[in-house]
Each structure stands twice: as C-alpha cells, then as structure tokens.
C-alpha cells in the first residue's frame, strides 16, 4: 500500500511533506476547536434552573481576529501547495516521452521507437518520463499512487503527466475516473528498471541466464498481456469469444452464412478487423480491433501460439 513513498520520487516526497504539514494543521485545529467545545459542554452544564448566563452578544475585535487568522493561514497554505504543484505540472525539457492510450478497460503505452505495450509500462530509473495521454472512448484517469500524481485521460484532447522514479520496482497504475463496467479492473503496472535492464528491454533481449522465448511463448505472453485471455480460452471453453483450442486448420462458419478454413490470413484479419467476419453465434460481444497495437511480428507470434494449441 503506498503509505510511505519517500524516496520513490522527489515530487511524491515533497507532496507528502505538504500533506504532513496539513495533517498537523488539521489535527491542531480539530483538537483546539473540539477541546474547547467539549470543555464548555461539561463546564457550563446546567446544574440549577437559575444558573446565571452572561449576555455576550459578540465582539468586533474577536470577530476581526478570527477572520484574519484563517485568512492568513489559508493564503500561506495556498502558496505552499502551489509551489510543489507547479513543479509537478512542469516536465523537464529532456523528458523521455511515452504516449498513453486509455480505452474501456485497458491501458496501452506507445514508446518513441513505435513499440506498443499493454498493461505494463516499463521505464528507466532516474529519468524524467512525460506521458502524453488520450482516451479512445470515455473519460479515464491515470493515477500513480506511489508518485502522488494523476491526470484525467480525455477523448480527443491530449493531457499530460510526468514523473521521475528514484527507485526500481513495481508500482500500481489505477484508473480513477469512473468509466463503466470494469472501471475497477482497469489496473496496470509500472515497472521501473535500472539502466542495464532498460537497455536490454529496449533491444527485446531476455533476462541474463534465460533462454530467448520461442514464438509460441511470445504469443502466449501477448495473449495474456492484451487481454485476449479475458475472451478466448485455451481449453475449449467459451468465455466471451470462441476458444483458441484446436481452431487452426478447422472450418469456421460465419453469421453471414459463409465459411472458410482458419489460416494465418484469417487470424490476422480477425485481430485487425474483427467485424469483417463474425463467427456464428457470437453476435452479443464485439471484439475490439487491435490495429495499431499488435504489430505484424506480434501477429505471427500469436498465430504460432494458436497453432500450438492442438
């Protein structure tokens, strides 16, 4: 749970300093007001019917004092907060830029080299990262609780957010703007890696000591990462779409009445333009297109994966 985030990022640490100051201030005001309230309630409790009471109707002096004090206090807090927030909203010029796309109910991340990732965003440590964000459907909000930053993700309008991680590790990504049915499942993972691992990741190399993945294995990873898993099983059971088990080379029947034998081209078409041919009996749930998200290389990995499921 992101409780103590000091050291994870400079901005987050500074936000928590403001927050701590405010917590002390709130605690002080709360205790001061209510201690007086409760003291009065007990001290002046009616003990006899004719307990005398004072005719105090107010005082200009006191009213002025307790108007001025809160005014001064809130102005100080305002500028204190603005100071940190200004830096939070000003990404450094040399930030590494990633494009974030939100859709119901998943995140995708497009890197400068054209590579697209889903759900997990890998970034290097000690590097300012600027996210340029846009939504493909409704409002979403990109939230990194460990970094104390968030910004809404809006359709047809680019918003941005930046952060710089000082510690490697895995951190939550939450969607914090209600976006329909699976809003609470719209989670992601931010993976902060050191420079060496980052370079490896950029070149698509496996972790040291691990054999490179076979196309089938890569395909399986893609199947998990892009949420195909949520609709397509590998054991023959129907989730929201047809299962992948044993479909390669089989004859498929469509709503239009046509049929064909499942081959590479058909799978490619199914991923890029799923509505071109609708499998018979699957009209309730629409499959989203993965055009622009899965690249040609990825497609052949997926095909290899599907082929392997005989």
């Amino acid at each position, binding site marked *: *749970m*992101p409780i103590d985030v000091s050291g994870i990022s400079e901005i987050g640490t*500074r*936000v928590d300093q*403001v*927050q701590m100051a*405010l917590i002390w201030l*709130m605690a002080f*005001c709360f205790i001061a*007001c209510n201690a007086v*309230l409760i003291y*009065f*309630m007990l001290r*002046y*409790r009616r003990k006899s019917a*004719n*307990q*005398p*009471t*004072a*005719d*105090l*109707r*107010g005082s200009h002096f*006191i*009213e002025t004092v*307790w*108007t001025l004090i*809160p005014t001064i206090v*809130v102005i100080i*807090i*305002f500028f*204190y*907060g*603005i100071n940190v*927030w200004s830096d939070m*909203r000003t990404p450094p010029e040399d930030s590494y830029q990633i494009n974030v796309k939100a859709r119901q109910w998943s995140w995708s991340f497009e890197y400068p080299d054209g590579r697209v990732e889903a759900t997990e965003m890998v970034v290097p440590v000690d590097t300012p990262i600027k996210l340029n964000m846009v939504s493909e*459907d*409704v*409002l979403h*909000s990109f*939230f990194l*609780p460990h970094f*104390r*930053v*968030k*910004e809404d993700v*809006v*359709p*047809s*309008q680019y*918003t941005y957010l930046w952060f710089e991680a000082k510690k490697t590790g895995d951190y939550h990504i*939450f969607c*914090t*703007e*209600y976006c*329909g*049915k699976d*809003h*609470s499942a719209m989670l992601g993972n931010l993976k902060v890696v050191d420079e060496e691992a980052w370079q490896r990741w950029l070149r698509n190399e496996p972790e040291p000591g691990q054999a490179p993945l076979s196309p089938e294995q890569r395909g399986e990873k893609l199947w998990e990462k892009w949420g195909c898993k949520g609709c397509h099983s590998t054991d023959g059971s129907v989730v929201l779409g047809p299962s992948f088990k044993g479909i390669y080379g089989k004859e498929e029947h469509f709503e239009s009445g046509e049929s064909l034998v499942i081959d590479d081209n058909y799978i490619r078409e199914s991923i890029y333009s799923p509505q071109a041919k609708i499998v018979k009996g699957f009209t309730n749930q629409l499959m989203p297109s993965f055009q622009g998200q899965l690249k040609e290389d990825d497609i052949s990995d997926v095909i290899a994966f599907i082929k392997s499921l005989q």
Partner: protein
Amino acid sequence: MSHAHADEHYLQAKGFYNWFFSVDHKRIGLMYLLAILFFFLVAGFSAILVRTELLFPGHTIVDARGYNVLFTLHGAIMVFLFIVPGIPATLGNFLLPLMIGAKDVAFPRLNLLSFWIYLLGVVCVLYALVGTPWKDWLDTGWTLYAPYSVQSSTGVIPITLGVFILGFSSILTGLNFTVTIHRLRAPGMTWHRLPLFCWAIYSASLIQILATPVVGITLLLLIMERIFGIGFFTPALGGDPILFENMFWFYSHPVVYIMILPAMGVVAEILPVFSKKPIFGYRAIAYSSLAIALVSFFVWGHHLFVSGMSYWSRWVFSLLTFAVAIPTAIKVFNWISTLYKGSIRLDSPMLYACAFIFLFTIAGLTGIPLATLATDVHLHDSYFVVAHFHYTMQGGTVIGLLAGLHFWYPKIFGKMYNELASKVGFWMLFIGFNMTFMPQFLLGYFGMPRRYYDYLQEYADLHFMSSIGAYLNGLAYLFIFGNLIYGLFKGKAAAKNPYESLSLEWTVPSPPPLTNFDEVPTVEDWTYGYASEQNA
C-alpha cells in the same frame, strides 16, 4: 372544504384530499418530510448493499455492473430526492412562516405546486433507476459524466428529465421563500432580528434560484445530444466532455451549500436555546451565510483539478476554494463561543447540534488538502473525497436535520419522543458514522480510488472496518426513526414551549393551529435575548 376553526390544529384534518390538495405550509412541509425520509431510507439501504459488496475483495453479492448500479442508485436518490429538497422543503416549509410571524408562505398555491412537481420528478428518476428491466438500470453514477452518459444504453434520458423537473420544484420553493422573507415578516421583525435559520434558508434559496437553471440547461443539452446527435459533449461529434463537467459543477458545487446552510441554521437556533445565552456574533453568522452563498458560485473548478483544465484556471480555483474556509471558520468559532458561560442542557437536540460542530470541523478541515493543489492531485477521486463529503453531507446535513427534527418535534406533532432512547440512538449513530468514514480517509490517502467494485488485498482491512461501521450506522437510523415514530403514537403530549425558546414558532400551541397566529404578532425585541444577567 372545512372552514378553519381558530383552534383547529393543522394535523386534525384527515383524508387524502385534505392533505394532497392543502396549501397549508405545515401540511406541505410534513408531506415533504415523509417523502424525503422514505427516500433517505431507500438510498441508505442501497448504501448498505454497496458496503456489503465491499466487505471483501472480489465478488461478494453482485457483479461489477450490479455494483455500479447500486452506487448510482445510492448517489442519485440521496442527492436528488433526499438532500436537495432536504431541510428547506421540510423544516423550512414548516417553520419559516411561523418564525417570521406569517400565516403562510407568500405563494401558498405555488408551494403545493412545487410539491407536485417534486413528485413528478420522483416518478421520472425512479423510472430511470429501477423502473426498467435490470439490464437497463442506470449505471452512470449520479454525476452523469459525458461521454459515458451519452453512450450508455441505460436510462439517462428519464433521469435527466427527472432532475430537470425536480429543478423547477427547487427553483419555485427558493423563489417562494425569498419573497416570503422579504414581504411577510411581522411588524418589528427587522432583518437584524430575523432568526438565523431564516437567514440560512434565505441564502440557500438564492442559490436555488440562481444555480438550478444551469443544471437544467446542461441536462437539456445532454438529452438533445442523445436524441438528435448534436455534438455538445462527445468529441466524436465535435463536442467537449470537459464542458459537461464545468456546467455540471457550476450547479452541483453551489448545491452543496443548499444542503449545508440550512443545517447550519438549525444549529444556530438550537445552541442559544439550550445554553440559555444569546447567539454569539449574530451578524457575523448571518452575513457569513450570504458570503458562503456568494463564494459558492466561484469554486466549481475544484472538481476539475486533474481534468486537463489549464494551469492558471487550476491556480485561480484553488485560491477561490480557500476563500470558502473563512466564513465557515467564522461560523464555527461563533457557535462554540455561544456555549461560553452558558447554562447548558444536553438534551438530544443539543447533542445533535454539538455533534454537528464536531463532525463539521472534520468535514471542513479535510477540505483543506483537497483545496491545496499539491495534495489534491493525489487525493482527487479517491476515498478521501468520499469520506470528506460524507462528513459534510451526513455528519453535517443529516445530523443537522436530525437535530432539527428532535428540536421541533414537539411543535410539529404536539407529542414527545422518548429522550433516553433518542440518546441511545444518537450514540449508535455517532459511533457507526465515524467507524464507517474514518477508515475511508485512510483508504483514500493510501491511494484507493472511488467507485471501485473490486480492490487490491492491501486495502481489505480498512474496507472491512468501514462496512461494519456502515451496518451500525444503518441500525442507528432504524432505531432513531423507530423512536420518533413510536413517540407519535405513544408519546406524552408536548407543552407549548418545552425548551423555553423565545422564537415566535414557540408562541403558538403545539401542534400549531391551521392559521398559525390568531392575530399578527408584533416583534419587540431580538430573538436571542436569553441571558439571565443583562449587560448595561
């Protein structure tokens, strides 16, 4: 129609016709009370279901969509059918004319019309929420954010229509009260003798008149977009979703003060009576109500602090939001000072009033990190916000309503409830409420987003605690209302003025006669001259 006898009291008339077509402000107030308390219980029950789903991570009683429907149901009914009409339509209707020495509101028939319009709005809202097959129940949240609300296949049109209609009811009530306070004050009831409850109702009425039309327009645009495909809010049609947020909160922020100002007014009435002391800083309290009403129109942008709004608009809205803190703090200081050197009875109305101050300081103070940009970015749309506004709405408005109900109960019904039982209910509520929402401040601070059907294991303990608190909270309400209903049938007859108040509504019999005052009273003095020792 029976001719009003001078000594016939307003409760005597029986039968549907005598109530549903009555233009008497007391009967209308009571009908409103019945209606809104019913919806309070319905919305409260859906909150219990929401908290039950959240007892444990993952599926507990409903699926994701079911959960979204439940929190929409809770929010929409609480806001539109309960808390917006809230205190003004009930206690305001009943007491305002009595307090200023009038026989009724300025436009009694308009008042009845407001009630009928309210009922019509209720029908539309309920149709949208629960009137269709389950798969079409509204799931947009009460905020109806575009473009989700434009795409949603659920009852967006009926609910917007319903809220649009309810808006008229609200505007007409506000108008009626404003004119009543301007025109119908008894001789001698100058503005500076006006009870603070009336000042509060007056300030809330101004907001009702000025802000409500904006939400009407917004919702009309939403309907047009859905029916005719005119692009106002959907980018695909050339619209702007942020425009919806701006318009929506231009109404919905000021509305927060329609809800809370009257509760503050109730508290300002109760404190002096039970302390036997003049209210401290009468003018400061009265004018701060107006100040809050004014400032409330300029702070809506704090709901858009992470929406993509420009740097400088966030800057300005943060500063303006802090401005609300000042009149609010002034009120709290003056209320507390009223108790100083008083002679305090801690009967249940007073307990509720003091609890209001206690809980409201939490509500107000937790607003500070939400107004501060650096910290709000993290807390925005998290459980911290949920806790904060429940402290204002439940800890503030509902506790204020209960304070008022317990205080004026003998006047309204001519009966007394069981005092011991009401104290037991009070403590159940106080503990249950804090147990529900204290953990939510922590959840929010630890990053838990709101409107989540499912959550990570690490948040489970705090969610569990909050849900248990919610059960106690719910039980407390059943107990409290049970006691109040029991008192109607079995309670002792109430005296005319059991708490020795100096306010005009206590000079008439309990329950008040249909015509309120036999002859128009003349006000000689300030309402709050309670002190036993007179200053020179």
